[in-house]
């Protein structure tokens, strides 16, 4: 009998390891020859740990499975059981998705290169190896892919700049410092399909003439670090990395580097300083990292999802990828639906769904069953959207048009018990804790921001225009997105939820 069980951190955090041991023990007790394959997560977090059994019709899912369910599952032969969900592929949450970047995640053994190949892996690289560097860059440009880390800069343009730079050494740096709350797409990808990221980095290296790559991976992701490290070693052993990639004559090798708990290192220039062994302080731009990046050399800095999407673009073609999406937001985006939500998880889909469809139809509203009050889109630097803006289509320009941003596509849902003044205060507090200290609007502004929100909380309404003014200063004067975007959550809370800021002195006392 063959079973599949997720090994993603989400499944582990919800008890998959005890479940795995119980499954093995029960199979042994019954004399059943059990093959338990550990896979990544399908992204349906409310169903984790998700257990699948191989049948002639396909994989049948059960979830969420606990140790207490094991005996009964064997008893019914993994058939009719209260936790049975039918064919995994038939589950509505999965069926409605367009899985391109995450096609293999949750399906294959993350650390089997033969599984990877069998599921279409390396087809993109094989095609790219037959192309010139310029043609590879043109393909990426044509696909319309934009930086999935949040900035939305066209990936092909960035690659073109690095390709055109003349230097003795160039680098590919993968930004895996996924620090935004509500985002876990990078983690899931690295834990569930690490070879996709490696393949994407190899293609990037060949395209721009870089022979070395680094993945800067946050220390808060111990499981992803372990999986990526093993995957890189396996890729090297199988000649996917090294002196002659798949026998092509191209050289590319890479290393996994661990961050050290600084949120600001998700900002590309701060990340580069950190990678060089310096304080993670933001650098002024120009020079662009594409021209003077890691150790002063031309460097492609791309997010995990941007790089992990490269293989499917080469496997299926730029036109295929570009066909999905809305306006200038082309292709698919892995939405991460989180917080107080009934059906939370990762949902990869073409750009263009409205916020309301994502929150109500896909997410099923709040877990608490109370009305949705606000949705923070794009992490701690993203705006809080009220229900009145639920018709906003998910796209870079569309969200910018509503004074928000899509960021890394994480959505945190809050029910009506949320206090938006408290959330605004937290945004400033977080900025104060994580500020690198280089520029004044961020370093001092965030501290003053906390104090100003506290004044409003005490019923001092005169502090409201002061907060607005401070936000304008931070937005216009900060060196990077930390200070520059902290005003988004603060101002959106203030604008859309004014009642939470209208505290009377009596109530405050």
């Amino acid at each position, binding site marked *: 009998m063959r079973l599949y069980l997720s090994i993603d*951190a*989400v499944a*582990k*955090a*919800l008890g998959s390891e005890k479940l795995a041991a119980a499954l093995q023990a029960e199979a042994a007790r019954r004399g059943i020859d059990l093959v338990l394959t550990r896979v990544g997560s399908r992204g349906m*977090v*409310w169903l984790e740990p998700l257990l699948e059994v191989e049948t002639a019709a396909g994989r049948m899912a059960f979830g969420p499975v606990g140790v207490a369910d094991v005996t009964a599952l064997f008893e019914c032969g993994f058939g009719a059981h209260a936790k049975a969900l039918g064919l995994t592929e038939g589950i509505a949450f999965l069926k409605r998705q367009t899985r391109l970047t995450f096609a293999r995640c949750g399906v294959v053994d993350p650390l089997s290169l033969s599984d990877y190949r069998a599921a279409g892996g390396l087809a993109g690289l094989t095609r790219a190896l037959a192309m010139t560097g310029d043609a590879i860059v043109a393909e990426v440009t044509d696909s319309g892919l934009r930086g999935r880390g949040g900035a939305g800069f066209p990936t092909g343009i960035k690659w073109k700049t690095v390709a055109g730079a003349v230097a003795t050494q160039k680098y590919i740096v993968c930004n895996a410092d*996924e*620090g*935004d*709350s*509500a*985002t*876990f797409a*990078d*983690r*899931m990808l690295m834990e569930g399909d690490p070879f996709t990221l490696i393949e994407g980095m190899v293609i990037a290296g060949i395209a721009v003439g870089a022979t*070395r790559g680094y993945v800067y991976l946050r*220390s*808060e*992701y*111990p499981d992803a670090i372990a999986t990526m490290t093993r995957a890189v070693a396996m890729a090297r052993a199988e000649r996917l990395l090294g002196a002659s990639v798949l026998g092509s004559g191209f050289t590319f090798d890479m290393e996994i*580097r*661990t*961050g*050290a*708990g*600084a949120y600001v290192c998700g900002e590309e220039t701060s990340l580069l300083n*950190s*990678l*060089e*062994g*310096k*304080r*993670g*302080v933001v650098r002024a731009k120009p020079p662009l990292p594409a021209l003077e990046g*890691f*150790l002063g050399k031309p460097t492609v800095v791309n997010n995990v999802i941007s790089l992990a999407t490269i293989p499917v673009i080469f496997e299926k073609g730029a036109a295929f990828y570009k066909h999905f999406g809305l306006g200038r937001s082309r292709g698919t985006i892995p939405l*991460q*639906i*989180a*917080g*107080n*939500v009934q059906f*939370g*998880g990762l949902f990869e889909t073409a750009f263009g769904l409205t916020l309301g469809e994502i929150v109500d139809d896909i997410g099923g509203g709040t*877990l608490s069953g109370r009305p949705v009050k606000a949705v*923070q889109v794009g*992490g*701690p630097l993203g705006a809080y959207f009220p229900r009145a803006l639920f018709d906003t289509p998910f796209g870079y320009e569309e969200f910018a048009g509503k004074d928000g941003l899509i960021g890394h596509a*994480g959505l*945190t849902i*809050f*029910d009506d018990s*949320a206090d938006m003044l408290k*959330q605004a205060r*937290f945004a400033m507090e*977080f900025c104060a804790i*994580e500020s*690198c200290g280089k520029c004044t609007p961020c370093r001092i502004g965030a501290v003053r921001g906390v104090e100003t929100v506290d004044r409003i909380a005490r019923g001092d309404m005169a502090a409201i225009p002061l907060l607005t003014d401070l936000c304008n200063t931070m937005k216009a004067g900060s060196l990077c997105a930390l200070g520059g975007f902290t005003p988004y959550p603060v101002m959106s809370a203030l604008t859309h939820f004014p009642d939470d800021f209208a505290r009377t002195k009596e109530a405050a006392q």
Partner: protein
Amino acid sequence: MPDQTPPTDLLTRTAGIVAAHLHLEGPLLPILHAVQATFGHVPRDALPVIAEGLNISRAEVHGVVTFYHDFRAEPAGQHVVKLCRAEACQAVGADALADHARARLGVAWGGTSRSGVTLEPVFCLGLCACGPAALVNGQVVARVDAERFDEIMAECGA
């Protein structure tokens, strides 16, 4: 637990760690991680050895060590519990959990209880659809409420 490593041993082992990382491009963070993995913290006495090995100033090493939340100046308790304080966990009760945890352990953030548990904040573990999340001695735990926290403490013998 006080650091009982004799300084000479500390210096030798630190020098060994530095030497093992010199071939890397940008070796300082990997060195600091290795030092912390070896000693449980980054001892003050290790900094001059690192500075010398990398041919940079002590001030520079000090600046880097103190910039990052991960590096400890003092050893942690026997158990380290990191509670997520970020928005997605806040939306499902992280603040109440944090209050409970600090009250139960009788410590502020960063403190170590008499029972040997160090409580630290963390901003996102990527477990945002099953919060509140925690990292207990390096192991991820999800949907932690006050009751679950007490169970975890009991498992730690604290």
